[in-house]
């Protein structure tokens, strides 16, 4: 949903950043840092991810001069974060462990019988739209809690794809995962949210 108006606004922001405009930096930090954090959390713990994002903003001051708009500003920033994380992991000789072998969440997988039919089918239908559901503050809080409990790789994929509306190929590029592995991450994360909402709708408990 990148309209011409948004592109103009982004171009104006980029020019201001290139001129070292402090107010433009404050605006950009607030607009883009949460996505940058989501990328960093894919690779490392919360404290290290915050350090990486801070360091990246300092490098942006010089790097933005060479920004050529081949990608959007958001994608460019996310790539900087991903590359920095990968370099740091290489220097620490740490590997990112990810299990892509299971498509179904274990809790959901257990709800089917041996003949692959539902043994415990969905207990109710979510009749309301997402916007209406979110009007319930308790559900919104519960969603926050469950999102923060997701494995980092699932949460980052979900944040970039759903919340930050990146295209699949950009998410793959930023997080360095294959298209099929991204599909697994997204599906697993959505199942966790489905299980959470089902429990909440049924019992009111988070």
């Amino acid at each position: 949903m990148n309209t011409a108006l948004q592109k103009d606004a982004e171009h104006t922001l980029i020019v201001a950043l290139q001129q070292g405009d402090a107010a433009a930096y404050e605006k950009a930090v607030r607009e883009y840092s949460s996505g940058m954090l989501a990328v960093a959390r894919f690779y490392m713990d919360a404290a290290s991810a915050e350090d990486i994002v801070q360091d990246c903003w300092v490098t942006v001051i010089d790097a933005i001069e060479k920004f050529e708009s081949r990608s959007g500003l958001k994608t460019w920033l996310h790539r900087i974060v991903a590359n920095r994380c990968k370099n740091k992991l290489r220097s620490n000789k740490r590997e990112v462990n990810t299990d892509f072998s299971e498509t179904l969440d274990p809790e959901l997988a257990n709800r089917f019988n041996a003949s692959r039919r539902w043994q415990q089918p969905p207990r109710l239908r979510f009749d309301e739209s997402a916007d209406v559901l979110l009007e319930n503050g308790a559900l919104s809080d519960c969603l926050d809690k469950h999102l923060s409990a997701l494995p980092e790789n699932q949460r980052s994929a979900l944040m970039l794809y759903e919340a930050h509306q990146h295209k699949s190929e950009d998410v793959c590029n930023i997080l360095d995962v294959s298209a099929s592995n991204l599909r697994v991450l997204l599906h697993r994360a959505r199942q966790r949210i489905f299980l959470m909402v089902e429990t909440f709708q049924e019992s009111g408990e988070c």
Partner: protein
Amino acid sequence: MLMCKDLAEIASDYIDGELATSQNLAIRMHLMMCRHCRSFIGNLRVSTDLMQAHSSVAPDEALMRRIDQRIAEALAARKKD
């Protein structure tokens, strides 16, 4: 034949329109016959929409201020150079 668990395994791909035509058709046939899977797909769709609508990506203001500070220092240092 596509069973309920098979459908659950590829449900997100179906929702996002990532499946081949033949798989899409198999899912639609299954959904016509299976109300449990209709509920599952509907609920998974709402769960996906919830993620898109949820604004939990609001940045932590304390971190933002630390970043502002570091940028201000870096900009000031550059002006001196």
